[in-house]
């Protein structure tokens, strides 16, 4: 045991590289574990949400009273079903004197189960007067509402064109659901919902959620066979609705985020693996000498392996300890913060409550990665050392000096700094290679990032088209048709108004019969656009509307890349309508809703043909001459004509969108932080170990009369030669990747910007290298020359 104590003292405790190796390893563990934790947390959050949401085998949607009564009846289904829950479709109720509105759902059955709401106070509604509300509403109202209070909501009656008040009693408050803007949620009983809908003269539409007996396929099919043929064409039938929706979300936004983190994790894992490998390579020449020395002292192979195995274990223990502390700090600070920021923009699902969930597993995984790298390096090292005779190992032959092919160079007038620097690089090729590799990857990342960030105007995206083109959006809250073509023209003549364009949003819903999916009926939304806006939409989708103004014109908006020539729709009465499609489009930047359902966009003549209705609009897009007056004048005009419209300032909306875009910037910063941390660690460790181990050589140079400045230059040049070459190597690849990104974001390629970004990126990397070398060199060589010359 005494022997190993001594051995460890030499090889571990007194070794100069120990602390740096442990530092790098700890750093690698912390970084990788933080990224893995982030990816896992997103996944976990989504899975939790998926598991919490109840699953129905299928859902019948948009049922009328008669249909509801039929399908709600358990006897109707025979033994094929186990459970039925009935709810109203979501409808909106306004909160008087505020911009807020409730998305209300009436429900039979257990609220907490069906909508996975988390009741914080009170109880679920039991009669038609009771309602439970979102805690966000309570917060927004500044605490003026509490349980037991009366809540008066209003509903707009289309026929009477007046608002009616309905009063409820708040009996419960549930944890806030993520929702957009002015929307908050509320739940009441089915009767409670019917009460409101009746006041607004709206037909209630219901959904019936059905669980097949024994959750079994056969029973499911049997149950489906009961649905009457005439209903099949009208009502929407969705399978496994909730589950499907959730899984879909995990695939899209959540899945995207997980992938981003996973890719980051792999990237950082590769770079940090190389970093660690490099670190050990830097130290290897010294270790080989050390092993040679120990063999000269009479240690046998077995003892050597045991000694270095112990070393390995100690390194790992140190690294795990340090890594644990570091990862806790990282996770608590930037991990958590960036995670929250990041997800604000990425996770749009109201069902998913995202939380950062650090786990030991990620830490252990990261630790294992480091353990594997350590083991591989040590086995290679020991095998290599044992392939030399002890004498070769002790003399620095093992450092690869035999392999230097000295070219007869004209020795007069060489730059001593670059000359010695290059020679030192040639001396340990493995080390040079790994340093080069880490540099290459860092350069690649930094250059790509800077090129993309510089060249892409994040705010010049399609989603902001509307906000970039117009100042205000006026819309009829109740989404009723209220503006005629003449009125639009009159508004455009107001002096403070520069341009007006208009549309009609949410006209009717139709059902499309899809033969190939059997009974699956797809809901089709409709939207009417004025000529100018339709022309814009066509242009943005590579079509041309010009010349079609005098005929019905239809565009099919879907995200699934279909190319339909003709679609067959059914209206509420079951009548069949055949529509010729003029073009298929993938984006409509002038309407925020939809996106999930297929939408039919059309011009005024198209609307006339489809609805046999006089055409009119409910949305105005206004570009103002003078912003302040514009609102006043338009408002006055609308009031005069007794049109009830609200407006939103699109610049404010831009601001909101920017917040979301901020999270993309956040990811970029996250990546930058990681890369910079790695670059700095890489450089610091490299220089430190390098300078520590070769102190004596630098000392000789100083004794021979080299100035301190020159020696620092030498240290810099050794790293700088590598970084120069690697930046040059990485540049074309970075260029290709970033061009791919830039054109992917649909933006123009600006050569000047790219050159600038490449310059700044490589300048920053090179500058950082230079600075760190300078600081380190200055500190080491401030010492007495004689002490540098000391032999250990």
């Amino acid at each position, binding site marked *: 045991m005494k022997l190993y104590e001594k051995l460890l003292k030499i090889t571990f405790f007194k070794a100069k590289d120990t602390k740096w190796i442990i530092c790098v390893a700890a750093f690698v563990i912390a970084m990788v574990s933080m990224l893995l934790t982030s990816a896992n947390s997103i996944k976990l959050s989504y899975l939790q949400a998926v598991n919490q949401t109840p699953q129905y085998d299928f859902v019948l949607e948009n049922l009328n009273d008669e249909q509801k009564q039929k399908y709600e009846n358990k006897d109707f289904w025979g033994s094929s079903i186990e459970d039925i829950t009935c709810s109203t479709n979501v409808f909106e109720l306004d909160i008087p004197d505020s911009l807020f509105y409730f998305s209300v759902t009436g429900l039979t059955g257990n609220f907490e189960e069906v909508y996975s709401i988390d009741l914080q106070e009170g109880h679920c509604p039991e009669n038609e007067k009771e309602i439970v509300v979102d805690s966000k509403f309570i917060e927004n109202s500044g605490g003026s509402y509490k349980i037991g209070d009366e809540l008066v909501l209003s509903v707009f009656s289309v026929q009477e064109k007046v608002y009616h008040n309905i009063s409820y009693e708040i009996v419960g408050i549930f944890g806030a659901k993520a929702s957009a803007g002015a929307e908050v949620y509320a739940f009441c009983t089915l009767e409670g919902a019917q009460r409101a809908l009746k006041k607004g003269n709206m037909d209630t539409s219901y959904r019936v959620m059905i669980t097949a007996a024994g959750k079994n396929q056969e029973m499911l099919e049997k149950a489906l066979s009961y649905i009457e043929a005439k209903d099949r064409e009208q009502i929407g039938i969705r399978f496994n609705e909730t589950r499907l929706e959730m899984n879909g979300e995990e695939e899209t936004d959540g899945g995207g985020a997980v992938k981003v983190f996973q890719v980051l994790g792999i990237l950082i894992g590769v770079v940090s693996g190389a970093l660690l490998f490099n670190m050990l390579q830097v130290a290897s020449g010294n270790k080989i000498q050390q092993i040679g020395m120990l063999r000269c002292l009479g240690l046998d192979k077995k003892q050597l392996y045991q000694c270095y195995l112990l070393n390995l274990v100690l390194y790992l223990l140190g690294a795990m300890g340090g890594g644990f502390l570091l990862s806790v700090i990282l996770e608590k600070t930037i991990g958590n913060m960036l995670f929250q920021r990041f997800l604000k923009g990425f996770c749009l699902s109201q069902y998913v409550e995202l939380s950062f969930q650090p786990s030991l597993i990620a830490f252990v995984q990261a630790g294992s990665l480091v353990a594997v790298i350590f083991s591989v390096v040590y086995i290679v090292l020991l095998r290599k050392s044992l392939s030399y005779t002890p004498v070769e190992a002790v*003399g620095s032959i093992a450092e690869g000096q035999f392999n230097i092919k000295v070219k007869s160079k004209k*020795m*007069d*007038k060489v730059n001593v700094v670059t000359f*010695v620097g290059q*020679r030192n690089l040639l001396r340990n090729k493995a080390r040079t290679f790994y340093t080069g590799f880490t540099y290459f990857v860092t350069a690649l990342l930094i250059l790509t990032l800077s090129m993309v960030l510089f060249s892409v105007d994040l705010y010049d995206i399609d989603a902001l088209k509307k906000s970039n083109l117009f100042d205000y959006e006026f819309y009829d809250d109740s989404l009723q048709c209220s503006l005629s073509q003449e009125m639009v023209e009159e508004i455009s003549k107001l002096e403070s108004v520069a341009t007006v364009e208009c549309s009609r949003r949410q006209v009717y819903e139709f059902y499309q019969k899809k033969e190939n999916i059997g009974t699956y009926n797809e809901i089709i939304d409709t939207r009417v656009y004025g000529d100018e806006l339709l022309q814009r939409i066509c242009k943005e989708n590579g079509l041309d509307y010009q010349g079609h103004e005098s005929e019905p014109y239809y565009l099919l908006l879907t995200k699934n890349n279909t190319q339909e020539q003709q679609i067959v729709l059914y209206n509420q009465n079951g009548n069949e309508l055949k529509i010729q499609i003029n073009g298929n489009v993938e984006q409509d930047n002038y309407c925020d809703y939809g996106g999930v359902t297929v939408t039919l966009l059309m011009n005024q003549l198209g609307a006339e043909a489809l609805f046999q209705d006089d055409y009119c609009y409910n949305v105005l897009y206004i570009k103002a001459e003078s912003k302040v007056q514009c609102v006043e004048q338009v408002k006055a005009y609308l009031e005069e004509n007794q049109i009830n419209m609200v407006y939103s300032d699109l610049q404010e909306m831009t601001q909101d969108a920017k917040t979301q875009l901020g999270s993309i910037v956040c990811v970029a910063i996250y990546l930058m932080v990681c890369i910079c941390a790695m670059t700095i660690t890489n450089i610091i460790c490299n220089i430190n170990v390098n300078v520590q181990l070769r102190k004596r050589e630098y000392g000789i140079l100083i004794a021979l*009369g080299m*100035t301190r400045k020159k020696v620092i230059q030498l240290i810099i040049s050794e790293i700088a030669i590598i970084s120069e070459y690697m930046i040059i190597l990485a540049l074309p690849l970075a260029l290709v990747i970033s061009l791919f990104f830039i054109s992917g974001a649909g933006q123009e390629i600006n050569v000047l910007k790219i050159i600038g970004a490449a310059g700044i990126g490589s300048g920053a990397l090179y500058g950082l290298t230079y600075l760190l070398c300078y600081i380190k060199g200055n500190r080491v060589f401030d010492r007495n020359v*004689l002490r540098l010359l000391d032999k250990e």
Partner: protein
Amino acid sequence: MAYVSMKNVKKLYTQGEDDVHALDGINVEIEKGEFIAILGPSGSGKSTLLNVLGGLDVPSSGEIYVDGRKINELNENQLAEYRRKTIGFVFQSFNLLPALTIEENIIMPILMEQKKVSMEFVKELMKVLEIDNLGKRMPSQISGGQQQRVAIARALANEPQMILADEPTGNLDTEISTKVVSLLVDTCKKYQKTLIMITHNEEIAAYADRIIRIKDGRVEKENCLY
């Protein structure tokens, strides 16, 4: 004034509680082209004297003049220049740069000067020191005696005025060391360099123009051989 003149040079090391007077008032004058042997028991301050003279270390007090320049008042860069231009060091433990070939090691001081390298002179020097066939080898590929001759060649390559050699033969056996020292001495004589050499070997010291004996940081005895 003599070429080298040391006046009351002291070097004090503070080791915790007690002070070590490595040099305790050295007064020495050396003429240009002289060969001085420094003798003395271990720990007497010989290396310290050489290091202080060579600008590797700074004295605690006293004055050192070399060729009329007061070298204990030079700044870091001037000291480096002094070491580069005026001094050639031969260390006991050779101190060759392992990454460079023998030839490159030898011309290193010339490269640092950013002077044009006169390969004829270097070749001649290598011939004189009998290492002219080792130029392309690495330091780890040659013997100790050869390494020491390389170190001597390096010290002379830049044509400095003064060679300082700290036990240049300490690591070598008697036969080789006599050979190496006579090479060093002959070469210095040939190129008219001042040579100051620390040695434990009285036989080698006998070659010197003058022997300076050091004890406890003081010059104990100076004897002129003629």
